[in-house]
């Protein structure tokens, strides 16, 4: 049984999320020395609208349309033999070859790092990118693998009993980032 969760506090409002996305978009372009070779890849589910928002900001800033791909990591999860039933497999689509591209993986929350490990394994099966970078909206700590993000929206120290919930308009109908807390047993 999943634990009952209570909203504890809102850490990012829609307006702040917009600013954070704009800043990350600027950092990506600055770090890359322009938009040449860039390919944003959103990790399903909420990494996809996050990547699309970054692409929209880059287009506003630079007047360049940066392609956005989607990546489903289900087939690369390291916990498939411990969970049942099998999770639903989503679609992966880049729209173009990833060889020699600078890929920016986009995800909503960076936690244990296991999702990113799976995403890296998946990417390598599609080709050989020139570089892979990582952009996340929230870094909540508690890493279990040696993975760090170059582009971070907000660092939020959390306890293990807390959950970070990102909601984006495109999927959830509302936009915010909240901390939820498990009910005491």
């Amino acid at each position: 049984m999943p634990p009952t969760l209570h909203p504890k506090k809102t850490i990012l409002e829609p307006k702040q999320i917009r600013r954070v996305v704009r800043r990350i978009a600027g950092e990506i372009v600055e770090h890359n020395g322009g938009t040449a070779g860039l390919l944003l890849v959103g990790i399903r589910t909420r990494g996809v609208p996050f990547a699309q928002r970054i692409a929209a900001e880059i287009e506003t800033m630079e007047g360049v349309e940066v392609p956005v791909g989607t990546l489903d990591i289900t087939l690369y999860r390291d916990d498939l033999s411990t969970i049942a039933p099998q999770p639903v497999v989503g679609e992966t689509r880049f729209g173009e070859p990833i060889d020699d591209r600078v890929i920016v993986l986009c995800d909503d929350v960076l936690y244990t790092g296991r999702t990113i490990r799976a995403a890296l394994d998946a990417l390598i099966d599609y080709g050989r990118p020139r570089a892979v970078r990582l952009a996340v909206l929230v870094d909540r700590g508690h890493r279990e693998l040696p993975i760090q993000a170059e582009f971070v929206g907000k660092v939020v120290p959390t306890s293990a009993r807390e959950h970070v919930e990102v909601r984006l308009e495109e999927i959830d109908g509302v936009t915010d980032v909240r901390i939820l807390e498990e009910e005491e047993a």
Partner: protein
Amino acid sequence: MAEAPESRSTARSTVPWTRKDLLGIEELSADEIRLILDTAESFREVAERPIKKVPTLRGKTVVNLFFESSTRTRSSFEIAEKRLSADGLNFSASTSSLSKGESLVDTALNLQAMAPDLIVIRHAYPGAPHLLARRLKAGVINAGDGAHEHPTQALLDAFTIRQHKQQIQGLKVSIVGDIEHSRVVRSNIHLLGKLGAEVTVAAPRTLMPVEMESMGVKVVHSLDEAIEGADVIMMLRIQLERQGKMRFPSTREYFNLFGLTTERMARAKDDAIVMHPGPMNRGVEIASEVADGPTSVILEQVANGVAVRMAVLYLLSGVRSEDGRDA
């Protein structure tokens, strides 16, 4: 080839898969069928990658136990297993101790001692997979049991139809040929019925079993009548090797009456597709001009078979026999 990514987002299935075995279509719900088809959509993409392999079933062992000869189905399962990184092991009747008089259950118990996760079985006797499923901890996939069921074939047929027609609900599907000896037809009637298609079966009276009337399909004895207004025409092979005696005077006469030709196709809908589960007998049930023509999706069926079998292997491997069945 029709691309229809939107067809699955509209009716995305949400039921979890909880069955240890895939024994037939008859016992599945429409939602379970949709879950397999939706999952197969995602696996189809793996075949288009430069590296056609994912690590999903690493460390799982799948035994392919084929008591009847099969090239297409067995190689399709084998490729599906390899693309999922499972270890596949092939047993065929002619090379194993089955030809030395061992019983089916003894063979299976011996295999179980090697701790496989899944067993794919084809057998000439209906119910053989069901017997194994009851006795073994491993998940069992029926790859054809006599003239009973061949669930993965019906699933790949449905997957192919959905690619071309977006949905199965309301389609007119005609199945023509050796209805009596076909396991494909039984699985397809169950599946197409559950997803809301109108099914017609057509065959000479000598190849039409009486139980067809009670399976909720329209029974006709003329090819033209079956083709009239059809969206999908599924041709079946005349299984001469299973017929004790000839059910018609000659294959030539059969072709004249029940062989699918371009002229006959004119009665179908303009965008009708032609399917065949293979292996086909050109000039017996189907003319080459149709088999190789623009309405034929026969080779797509083969390609889709791998994706569908990957989906089945993936879903079944998530159910553990100790706790999975009632989870």
